[in-house]
């Protein structure tokens, strides 16, 4: 493999020029890895907080109906499906909450806290009190922190709920939660039996939340439930379609930038190789006279492109890793409740990002090497030899 010998000698003998092209490649690889890590961080935090704080599948009543009747049978059926970890039936209604001179419109959820905890871990977000305090059909209420603040009330205070068609009812605040999302301002939980009584609806529900072991199975399973039962089953993806489309679009945009960044580094490599080819004309001619085939000459310069690329990729990966880790340790100077409960920059350092950035960079480098390599291999040996 004399081609490799010649290629490495060419690179070694012009350290300064090759150093700059290696720096260009490593910066490109490093920056792209940082980008990918940060994008991945934001995506995963968005998706995690979505799948953490929502039912993976929500079953709604059939079209034209307000309630799901005889829901216990449906509950049992859902539990038999593969991958289902929890089912929580709920009765949801609009209400106005009043405390002294403050009033706020809310979505009142009647739930069974034992079931609800299996679907969404509400305990985790409790700021005060216990979520399980609404276990019995008494007049207790658990509400979001922002809502409590707006109503200017605290634990143990008694709030009046105005429900259409029912007498005003008092509830005692036994829990306050904070998720860092808009529901903190609009959501309150009471016992499901109590709410059914207030609405006078009998033992029916307005919906059912399901948690799966694999959130990404939600789409298929929702379609299955839809077909099988006739109820309207909605996956979390469908519910958050806008966010997911936004994520996909921004990912597409970012790939466009990746190509530009790699393109620029590729030109750097091409430039160095063209210079080497021009300088080495006599040498290339002599190699041909010694019997090196055109393919071998081409190979020499493609190898040079690959070696420059490799060195850039290795340094770039180290750079990307160190920088991503450093960014991950940056403390965000905003209160955690403002932003999905984050206190650090969201960064996900993934092995596959290193692989894809490296492969991408290598391919672009080799493509950048094709032009100078072809140019070298197409030389007329006589012209090349007598050029010196």
């Amino acid at each position: 493999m004399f081609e490799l010998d010649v290629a490495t000698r060419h690179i070694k003998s012009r350290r300064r020029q090759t150093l700059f092209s290696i720096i260009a490649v490593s910066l490109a690889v490093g920056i792209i890895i940082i980008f990918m890590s940060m994008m991945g961080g934001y995506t995963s935090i968005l998706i995690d907080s979505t799948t953490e704080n929502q039912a993976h599948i929500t079953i709604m009543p059939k079209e034209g109906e307000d309630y799901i009747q005889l829901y216990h049978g449906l509950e049992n059926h859902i539990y038999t499906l593969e991958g289902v970890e929890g089912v929580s039936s709920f009765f949801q209604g609009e209400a106005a909450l009043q405390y002294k001179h403050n009033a706020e419109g809310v979505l009142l959820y009647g739930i069974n806290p034992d079931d609800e905890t299996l679907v969404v871990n509400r305990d985790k977000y409790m700021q005060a009190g216990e979520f399980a305090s609404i276990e019995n059909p008494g007049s207790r209420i658990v509400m979001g922190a922002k809502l409590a603040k707006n109503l200017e009330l605290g634990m143990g205070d008694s709030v009046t709920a105005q429900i259409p068609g029912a007498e005003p009812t008092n509830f005692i605040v036994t829990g306050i939660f904070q998720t860092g999302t808009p529901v903190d301002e609009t959501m309150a939980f009471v016992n499901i039996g109590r709410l059914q009584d207030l609405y006078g609806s009998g033992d029916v529900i307005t919906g059912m939340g399901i948690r799966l072991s694999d959130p990404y199975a939600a789409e298929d399973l929702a379609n299955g439930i839809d077909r099988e039962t006739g109820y309207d089953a909605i996956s979390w993806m469908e519910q958050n379609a806008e966010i997911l489309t936004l994520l996909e679009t921004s990912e597409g945009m970012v790939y466009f930038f990746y190509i530009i960044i790699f393109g620029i580094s590729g030109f750097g490599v091409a430039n160095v190789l063209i210079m080497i080819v021009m300088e080495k004309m006599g040498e290339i001619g002599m190699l041909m006279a010694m019997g090196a085939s055109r393919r071998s000459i081409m190979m020499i310069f493609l190898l040079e492109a690959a070696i420059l690329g490799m060195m850039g990729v290795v340094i770039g990966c180290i750079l990307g890793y160190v920088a991503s880790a450093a960014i991950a340790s940056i403390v965000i100077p905003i209160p955690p409740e403002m932003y999905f409960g984050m206190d650090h920059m969201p960064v996900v350092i993934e092995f596959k990002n290193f692989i894809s950035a490296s492969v991408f960079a290598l391919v672009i480098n080799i493509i950048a090497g094709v032009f100078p390599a072809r140019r070298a291999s197409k030389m007329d040996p006589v012209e090349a030899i007598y050029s010196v």
Partner: protein
Amino acid sequence: MSEKYIIQIKNLTKIFGDGVEIKALDGVDLNIEQGEFLAIVGPSGSGKSTLLNQIGILDTPTSGTILLDGVDVTKMSDKQRSVTRNKQLGFIFQYHHLLPDFNALENVMMPMLINGVKSSKARETARKMLDEVGLEDRMKHRPNQLSGGQNQRVAIARALVNKPSIVIGDEPTGNLDTKASENIYELLRRLNHEYNQTFILVTHDERMAAKTDRIIRLVDGRIAEDSGRL
């Protein structure tokens, strides 16, 4: 008859240029035997180097045939030409054209490495060859650490290391002073006797040409005089 000649050139013509045509070679016929030590002389522009490049299959003729060892090289594919250059031909140019990033030993190894010889074996053969040209103590030196004469010796070692049947030299002493030229000539002569390889040297140094066995004088792309084997 054909076995006697290592090189047979018939009616070789080379025309350069698209618009204004220049006939660099004009119907050259030439037969050269194995082991000859001959000089091609002539004024500049007479076609000496062109003829040499044709024999070295670095270039293709406009018409005519060249048989090296009985094989018509003008009909060869690019790949076959490379292989033939590697195995049958050795080149020495006026400028040594050593690879500047390799030392003397590595430069001499290069034709063998191109041929796919294992590096350990190539190293051994190259060492013997450098011994032969009197550079046993300069093997690790790079071209920029050697004198012009020494570099030309390395180039000769490289040209001969694959045991080619034909060695062609284009002004091999053109860059050297009289003393160094003399030494290079003596070396080539000795190697020619030792290995019975065919040497074809282009030169305009009449004194050097006079020491060869046969002088071919080219004028305007034609053979004006052939002294025959002396």
